[in-house]
């Protein structure tokens, strides 16, 4: 009943909201086009040096060339994406794993914290040449660099989330006779989920940075290599096209993480929460012998 009413309310809300949204998008596009146009003219009439700031149309042409005609960019994109994602997964698994161990065991926490702090205050990207010296020239060192610089946010966020459990909730579980394992999986972990996800969102962009810096230092494939090749050849339009592709890739990863957040931390997202609420009502209909709206 109440859900159905809510549905109706939001329906009447949607129509004007959609109109406003279209207006907003239109204004954004107009502003973007205006900036591009000014840039285009400034570059054409050499108000800025096109070698420094190539024309938007030149960048667009380079982009179309790269993506559609040459097609080699897909291979490099795949390499960088693979390095970034692998670095992210490895770094996150290590970060979360260490945090869980530290969260559950106080003496372990005490022993590793100085090392963790040392590693945090070190500009870890400075380790990149050392890692490359150790691991050689393939994808492995880039993955390792990505993992190294991205593991900290998942670690510290997971630890904070696990330790930040409501004391009353903890006592409530104990009063029910819950075992440590039950408290961990039913209380501590879900309670930490929102902040863990926030850490993972930061980690994925760090892993991408790690992969590209690794490629800058020494590599024969990947978007970092393409970027260097084009800038060394003073083909600035293509360099910017590479940058655009990296932006799109970063954005895609970001959207993926937002989607995962929406899926995993459903209780912090109203729409998902309402949908799950209805789904559960349907699933329970048989048990309670009552139809839900």
């Amino acid at each position, binding site marked *: 009943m109440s859900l159905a009413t809510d549905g109706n309310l939001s329906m009447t809300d949607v129509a004007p909201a959609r109109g406003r949204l279209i207006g907003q998008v239109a204004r954004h596009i107009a502003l973007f086009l205006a900036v591009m146009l000014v840039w285009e003219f400034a570059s054409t009439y050499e108000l800025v040096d096109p070698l420094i700031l190539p024309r938007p149309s030149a960048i667009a042409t380079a982009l179309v060339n790269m993506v559609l005609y040459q097609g080699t960019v897909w291979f490099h994109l795949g390499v960088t994406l693979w390095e970034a994602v692998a670095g992210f997964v490895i770094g996150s698994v290590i970060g979360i794993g260490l945090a869980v161990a530290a969260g559950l065991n106080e003496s372990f926490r005490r022993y590793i914290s100085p090392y963790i702090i040392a590693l945090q205050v070190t500009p870890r990207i400075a380790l990149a040449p050392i890692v490359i010296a150790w691991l050689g020239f393939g994808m492995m060192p880039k993955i390792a660099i990505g993992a190294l610089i991205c593991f900290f946010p998942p670690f510290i966020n997971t630890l904070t989330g696990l330790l930040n459990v409501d004391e*009353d909730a903890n006592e409530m579980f*104990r*009063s*029910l006779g819950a075992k440590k394992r039950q408290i961990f999986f*039913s209380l501590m972990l*879900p309670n930490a989920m929102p902040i863990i996800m926030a850490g993972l969102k930061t980690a994925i962009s760090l892993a991408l940075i790690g992969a590209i810096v690794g490629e800058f230092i020494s590599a024969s494939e990947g978007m970092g290599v393409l970027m260097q090749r084009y800038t060394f050849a003073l083909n600035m339009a293509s360099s910017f096209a590479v940058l655009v592709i990296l932006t799109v890739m970063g954005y895609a990863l970001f959207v993926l993480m937002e989607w995962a957040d929406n899926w995993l931390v459903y*209780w912090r997202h109203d729409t998902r929460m309402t949908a799950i609420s209805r789904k559960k009502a349907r699933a329970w209909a048989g048990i309670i012998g009552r139809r839900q709206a």
Partner: protein
Amino acid sequence: MNAIASHLVAASTSHIDPDIVISARDLVKAFNSQVVALDRASFDIKRGSFVSLVGPSGCGKSTLLRLVAGLIGKSAGELSVLGHGVSGPSHEVGMMFQRPTLLEWRTAVENVLLPTEVQGTTTDADRKRAIELLQLVGLKDFEFSFPRQLSGGMQQRVALARLLQTGANILLLDEPFGALDEFTRERLNLELLRIVDDVDATVLFVTHNISEAIFLADQVMVMTPRPGRLAKIVDVPFERPREIGLMQTPEFNRLVGEVRSILGGH
């Protein structure tokens, strides 16, 4: 040797009254040498009775409840629940807190089912009971709402249903409606009386509101702070079921005055 031992056993069993569910003798809890949260408390609580604990904050009310719940260990004295010394949490004893302590990722009914889940596997009978309990506490049609979609009063109702789902016969309530507005609190108090009558439980109810303590209870344990002491146990003779108008009667106000004077002496 044997004679002495059997004599001791006889002496210690002779005072076990099957009607006494909670019994304390000189119970002490000290957190460290400075803080004596509870100093030599002795009391017996009868099966099926409703006992209020009243006193200013810091007088050891929560400490007493947590001792009975087996959440903390005593420092000295004796404490037994259903004839056994308390050594940890027990399925016979359930506890409810001032804050709802609901799991925000679970629907109301899934929160109510938590005690069942912790104890083992959940059957359809358990699920039916959880739904019934939510109806009992007045939350029909909110079974599948998440805590964030419920008001503070409704959340505390879910917590009450969860407490009842434990099947515990001894219910410890630590200022359960203390964070709610006065109207909601009054209504929930009346419903609580109806519900515990229904489920035939023994209740220890903590509050710092004297009228509330008297209105609800068969006995009021009056506590005073620094160190936390049980100053007096006051019997409340009023008939049940009780109506809210009771609070206007002279006898009621006489009892309020009596409790206030015990607290005022400190």
